[in-house]
Every structure is written in structure tokens, then in C-alpha cells.
């Protein structure tokens, strides 16, 4: 990388110009060694030998444009982003040189320049930080970890628990096993279709008028919702069976209206 530290002549201006030219040439020779336009700009900015905060962005823009110009003369292919940066810096340069146009909105040349200066300073800041980081004592080079680590043996210990409830339920399960039928079902609140059919066969002969099937539910099945649901379903299914047999008719005026049945003559 170009280093301006070589120059300690007294004549600042000559020195700067020489440095600039040398730097630009060095850049061109080494353009592959740069990591993009920001890197080039940062290198160029070093020739100003000032705090990056006080850098002359205008001057820097000129240096960069000179660098690109030189590359063109040498017919060097520059990557597209170098040219994009050149175009942008040319734009920035014109903004910085011309008095601000009040009718134009967008950021002023100064704002753009300040941001570029910030980017350069930040990149430099991160490079310095990286250098300081890498200069730290590092493990495996300056300090070392234990050479013979011992493996920590993992031991799994299992404890078993049971509660009194588990115990009693287990006992109850064993002692009552024989009491249960193989297929256990709550039959108390189930009204089967067979039952409903038997009941309806006996009654349908008396139903000359349309009657709501709800009135066909057996005694005691209309109150408990569980029982009512089972009995209603069974009665409805039995009604359909009777209709299929040609012994009854069934109708419903509309969705959710009462379902009615009567004897078919």
C-alpha cells in the first residue's frame, strides 16, 4: 500500500503534489490489491495528512477522478463500481463548487461530503480496531489452555416415584379387573335405534296427523340433554327406517324446522 511516510521534504505543496502523483500511480499499479473504491479513497485521503474529520472531500474527489483518469489513459480496465464512484464524486464535486441552488431539493454538497468523510473515518476506525484486535495476545499463540483436559463423566441417576393415588389406583385396577365387561360403554343414557323402532312400530298406526318427532321420545328421556340427544337421534333414525319400509311419511318445512312424521296409508 502506498505510504506517504517516505516524504519529509520541507516544501509541503511540492511534496503533496509529488505524493499525490506517486500515490495515484501506486494505486493504479496495485488496483487489484484494493478492496473497492472506498479503500482507494481512504488510501488517497492519507496524502492529505490530516485528521480524517478535517479532510477536504473536494480535494479527495479530485484525487480520485485523477486516479480514474490515469487508469483510462493506461487503458486499464477498472471495475464498474470504481466508475460509479467516479461519477458520483464528479457529481459531488460540482455540488461542492457551485453555489447551492435553492430550488433543488435533496441533500446539499456539504451533507454528502460529510457522509463520505464519515464513511472513510468509520472504515479507518474499523481497520484500526481490527489491527488492535489481532495484536492482542491470542490463545494458542501467546497463552494456552489446559493441555490435558479431563472429560467430565456424565452420570445419569434415575429415581422412581409413585404417589399414594398411583398405589390405590393400581390396587383398584387389579381388584376390579374381573368386574368389567370387555367392552365397557355407558348404556344408561343410550337409547338405541332398535328400541326406538320397536316403540314406533307400535305407535305409528295411531299417527294420522303430522306430529313432531320430539313428541315420540320415550317417557323420561326428554329432560337430561345427554339422554334427549340419544333418544332424538334414535327416534329420527327409526322414523327413516319406517319411511323406508313404506309405513310412514316424514317431512321438514325448512332447515332446522321440526321434523314431523305420520302414518302412511
Amino acid at each position, binding site marked *: 500500500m502506498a505510504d506517504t511516510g517516505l516524504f519529509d521534504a520541507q516544501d509541503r505543496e511540492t511534496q503533496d503534489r509529488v505524493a499525490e502523483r506517486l500515490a495515484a500511480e501506486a494505486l493504479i499499479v496495485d488496483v487489484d490489491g484494493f478492496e473497492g473504491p472506498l479503500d482507494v479513497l481512504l488510501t488517497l485521503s492519507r496524502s492529505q495528512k490530516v485528521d480524517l474529520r478535517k479532510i477536504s472531500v473536494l480535494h479527495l474527489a479530485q484525487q480520485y477522478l485523477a486516479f480514474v483518469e490515469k487508469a483510462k489513459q493506461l487503458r486499464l480496465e477498472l471495475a464498474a463500481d470504481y466508475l460509479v464512484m467516479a461519477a458520483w464524486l464528479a457529481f459531488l464535486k460540482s455540488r461542492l463548487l457551485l453555489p447551492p441552488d435553492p430550488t433543488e431539493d435533496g441533500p446539499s454538497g456539504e451533507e454528502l461530503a460529510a457522509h463520505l468523510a464519515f464513511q472513510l473515518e468509520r472504515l479507518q476506525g474499523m481497520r484500526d480496531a481490527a489491527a488492535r484486535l489481532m495484536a492482542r495476545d491470542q490463545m494458542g499463540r*501467546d497463552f*494456552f*489452555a*489446559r*493441555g*490435558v483436559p*479431563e*472429560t*467430565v*463423566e*456424565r*452420570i*445419569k*441417576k*434415575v*429415581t*422412581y*416415584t*409413585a*404417589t*399414594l*393415588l*398411583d*398405589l*390405590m*389406583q*393400581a*390396587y*383398584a*385396577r*387389579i*381388584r*376390579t*379387573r374381573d368386574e*368389567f365387561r*370387555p367392552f*365397557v360403554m355407558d348404556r344408561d343414557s343410550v337409547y338405541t335405534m332398535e328400541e326406538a323402532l320397536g316403540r314406533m312400530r307400535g305407535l305409528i298406526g295411531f299417527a294420522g296427523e303430522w306430529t313432531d318427532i320430539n313428541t315420540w321420545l320415550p317417557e323420561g328421556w326428554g329432560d337430561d340433554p345427554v339422554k334427549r340427544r340419544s333418544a332424538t337421534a334414535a327416534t329420527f333414525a327409526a322414523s327413516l327406517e319406517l319411511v323406508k319400509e313404506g309405513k310412514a311419511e316424514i317431512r321438514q318445512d325448512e332447515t332446522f324446522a321440526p321434523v314431523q312424521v305420520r302414518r302412511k296409508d
Partner: protein
Amino acid sequence: MSEHADDKEESLFEAPPMAEQERMIEAILFATAEPVSVRDMQARMPHGSEPKEALVYLTKRYEGRGVHVVRVGDAYAIRTAPDLGFLMQKETVETRKLSRAAIETLAIIAYHQPCTRAEIEEIRGVSVSRGTIDQLIEMEWIRFGRRRMTPGRPVTFVVTENFLDHFGLENARDLPGLKELRAAGLLESRPAPMGADAGDEPEDAEQDDLFEDDDVIELP
């Protein structure tokens, strides 16, 4: 890194102070994968060093500490103090529910004690594996009772104080009877499908279970 050069230069004139040499062998013994011989230390340390002497100081320094300087053949190493070996184990405790075979066996013993193995098998309807009994004995929930004065003088099992303590009972007679269980709603719940075919439970499965358990339990 520059100290290296410094040390070397200095070493032309005099060896580092003994305290410094002690630091050096401390670092070497710590970081080296194998025990280090005195000759090897000397080769690494600045000219004129006396690792043998420094080792005496270092060994003394680590006396009674968590790690010791030990001699391994001709070489030296730092090792964990023997009494702290237990720190190199990480114990994880896992709590598992007692297997169904075990809890049922336990329940039968609790309700029918003293109770022979044949009785347990009769009530459960399946044979009781040795592992199940062993596990309950190891947990100190059951123990051997008196032998039954019947042909063969079979051993009986009874529950222990630990059992009563764990389940919060004064006496095994306090266990609620079937009627009370029913009244308490404990019998109302329909047996799960698993419960219904308990009698068909393949013995192998049960035994596998217990072999596994045994392995784990036997760890200190």
C-alpha cells in the same frame, strides 16, 4: 514474543529468578498434553534454569490444593487431587414413574402383607419378575417378612417404614378399602384400554423394562 529475545539475551548472563522459573514450569505443566521430563523443561526454559529445583517449590505450592504436581515415571504433570475426582462427574437425576408392574406389586404387598410371591402372582394374574421385587427392595419400600408356615416355607414381603413415610401413612391398615376407593371415585374411572388387558401383558416386555432399570440403579 519480544520477551523471548529478551530472555535469551539475559540468559547469557544469568538464569531467571527461581520464582520466575517456578512460573515457567507451572505454565509448561499446565499447557502440555503429556507429562514433561526435567530435560524437556530445561530445553524450553532460558539457559541456566534449574527446573528440578523449581519443581520442588511448585510441588510444595500445590500441596493440599485442588490439583497436585505428580511424578509420572521420569516426567511431571499436574493432576486433579484424588479426593476431588467426584467433581469430574456430572450427575443428572431423572425422576421416573414407577413401572406399572412395580406399582401393582407394591400395592398388592401393601394391601395383603405379609404376602408371598405366589399370592402376588395369583392376584396380578401374571408372574412377578425378580427385577420388580429387587427394585422395590432396593428402594426400601418392601422387605422380607417372616416365612409362611406352609409347605415350602415361602418368604413373604411386607412394606417398610420408608414406604409408610413416603406415602404419608401411619400404618398399612390405613389404606382405604375397595368400598372406600369406590366411594372416593377412584374406581369409577373406567380402566384404560391398557388396564383391561393387563393380564395379557407379555412377560418379556416387563423384564426388559427391569433389566434396563437395574443397569441404571446400580450406579453409585
